[in-house]
């Protein structure tokens, strides 16, 4: 199967450039995953946004942070 | 070789920090309500006023860092702070110690900040215009003398 090339429009590129300016890596990661989730669920015919997926994104990033800081201790 | 205060940290008392926040804003649109662009600007002015009023109040143990000395202007802020340090100690050897110069400035600023609060925030009118009037009134009283 042909590998799909990801198309990034100029406006999406501008958004990506703005996101790159976020200093906190954890927050940057959460935003990236959230935006991707929103993108997959943005159709007008969708019933409910999958909030549990968003909670999972926050939770997994928080766990990584906690593990890193526990190890550091 | 000029005096070098770049490596020094500047502190204020914890309970005066709120006054600094009320009077400082980088945004131009807030200029009238926040007469000072930076913490440094306000700190140096407060120190000048504290010295002029002869009100020296050493910092308490509850202090908060508000900026680093690297942002002092070498040809303007630094000589003024040196003068304020000399005003306190009357001994030129104080100028050999950047930490000492800043500590003294902190004490003068701790004394002057409350006066600024009273004049700028507790008078009718916007804080910036109160500040400008305070300066112009002082200027004209000198001109009259």
């Amino acid at each position, binding site marked *: 199967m042909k590998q799909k090339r990801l198309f990034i429009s100029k406006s999406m590129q501008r958004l990506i450039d703005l996101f790159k300016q976020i200093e906190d890596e954890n927050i940057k990661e959460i935003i990236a995953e*959230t935006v991707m989730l929103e993108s997959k669920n943005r*159709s007008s015919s969708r019933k409910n946004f999958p909030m549990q997926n968003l909670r999972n994104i926050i939770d997994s990033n928080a766990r990584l942070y*906690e593990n890193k800081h526990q190890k550091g201790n | 070789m000029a005096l070098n205060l770049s490596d020094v940290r500047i502190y204020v008392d914890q309970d005066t920090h709120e006054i600094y926040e009320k009077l400082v804003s980088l945004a131009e649109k807030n*200029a009238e309500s926040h007469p000072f662009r930076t913490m440094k600007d306000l700190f140096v002015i407060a120190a000048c006023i504290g010295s002029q009023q002869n009100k020296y109040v050493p910092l308490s143990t509850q202090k908060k860092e508000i900026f680093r000395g690297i942002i002092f202007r070498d*040809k303007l802020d630094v000589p003024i702070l040196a003068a304020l340090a000399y005003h306190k100690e009357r001994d030129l050897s104080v100028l050999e110690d950047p930490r000492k110069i800043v500590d003294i400035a902190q004490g003068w600023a701790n004394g002057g900040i409350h006066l600024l609060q009273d004049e700028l925030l507790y008078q009718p009118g916007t804080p910036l215009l109160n500040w400008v009037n305070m*300066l112009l009134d002082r200027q004209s009283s000198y001109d009259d003398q």
Partner: protein
Amino acid sequence: MRFERLEILNFASYYGEHAISLNCTDDKPAIIFLGGTGYGKTSLFDAINWALYGEDYENELPKRRRGRNILDYVNEVALQEAERDGKYVEMSCTLYFKHDDIPYYITQSLAAKPVRTSDNTLTATQTDRITTLYEIDGAGNHRKKPYNTIFLDEILPSNVKDYFLFDGDRIYNLTKPDSSEEVREAIYRVVDLELLQNAQAHLEQVAAEYRRMAKNEAKGRLGDIEEKYDAEHKQLTQLKADIQTSRTEKQSIESQLNAIEAKLQNLPDTSKLQGRRDELTKELQRTQNEINQLTSVLREKASIAGLSFAAHAAQMLVEELDTKRKRGEIPKAVSQTLLKDLLKMKKCICGTTFEEGDPAYITLTNRLQAEQNKSNQQTLLDLRIDLGKASVEIEQSSIQLKESEIKRNELLDLQKELRKAIEQVDAELEKLPKEDVAQLTREARKRREASNSIEGKIQRMLERAEACERRIKEFEKQREKLGKQQAKVAALQLRETFASQAAQEIDKIYDIFAEQSRQSVEALTLQEFKHFVRSSSAYTVALNNNYELVVLDSNGNRALQRLSMGQSQCLSLAFITAISRVSEKNPPLAIDMPFGRLDQSVHKDVSARLPELTNQLLLFLIPEIEWNDVTRDNLKHKASHIYWLDFDETSRKTEIREL
């Protein structure tokens, strides 16, 4: 994406099966459908939309097509036959297209049963409904794919389809004064601002959940803090929502005000007075800008002039340093460079030459050594010089401060006079004998007052929001400190912080991104406008901060009213095409009756430009009115297919014939 073929079965006035080739080439991107009113042009347009968007499009039909629903499209002849034969009727639309060189086809089909209503009308009742999507692979196999809008969103997102597949009425609507909301909505959707806003809202929702959980979990003093923290957040959220509502209200009022002022401008009795009012208003704005600049200058100069409070201390130090200098404890400045040069040249200032080891050489060397050791004294010397310069700078700033203050006061006085002058003009306008003028002026004044009142409300709410944010920061510090003692609460706090901060970062980015997007759409709209209306060089187009499409003349005055009907419609069209270009999806453009409401004067430029905008252009045109000498000349040689739709009144069927 390119459409390849449309197959319809018993759809609208198309009885039985019909297949229409939509193939085109790069140099002939147009496919033209010609047919009179009611001949089935719009039905083909609907067929394409239904094939692509299925249920989404069905849900829009009542609004778009005056109460119709999809079952109204079942062909009446086929329905009658089904009733006669006691059978079901099938209706379907299949659209073949290519995306990334891969062929696909989507089919929407439904089965319907003929039913007689109480007043003996024959209608259709749906009994079955299917949507399928197939990919045709390299070997010619048809592989079923899940039909969902994720797939379509990548090609032709549903939320912006109105800017690729649209009808002529749309062109008419966007330059009306109250259309700024629609304009903003278009940009909002096409550049994913909607997505950002949803992301922010969802993150805030999750943050609120974690806050609630932390509040429930926390004990003792931490419990109190969590309670207060949660309450502050709720208040802040409410304030932000109220601020947004007020801003929207204010924008709406300002749009109405602009419309009233535009009307007044064009009335013969008022144009002079209204012109004067506009000039005064602009002058007032300019004055305000100058005042704002001077305010910044005052702040800057005051920060330097304020150092004069140290004058006494500086004087004391200067006196001490001067005394030391007089006593020789701080030597006059002797240039080390000069001494080095003399030693190198082996010649003194007085002209005496010397060699190494000579007394003159030794004296100079010792002097150089002494200078290099005197860095301390050099510091004091530099300090003395700097104090002198600082004093000059402080004095200059004091003078500039005074001058700026005087100038600012003059401008404030000027502002007062300008406001009075505007009030006088308003009073004269209100006194004019013509009732409509007086009425309009009164309406304008009411709106200005309302706008000011709302702005005051917004400012107060902003201050309350800032105070809320300060309290929240304080609570965050206390939570962190106390939270460390309760591990479960700490974990919840961390998650809440992550979600909150992510929402805040998006908030920061949102305004910047929205502004960039507005500017980019504005630039493209202007570009397209110039193409569509070649005689428009005197005008420029702007999309202002309130998302109003405005046209300005060379003096920067609003000129929309001076455009012809056709030109202002072209402005809408320019905006629509700008939106489709911003999306960069490069989809086909399908326009139902694009020239129907456009003035003949602009038919030439528009018909020349449309084929340049896309690699596939479907136009549904009324013969004579829209397919005339001018448009035909421009479009004929750009068309891969021209279809004629023939509706037979007797048989109630449309036939399609390629010309």
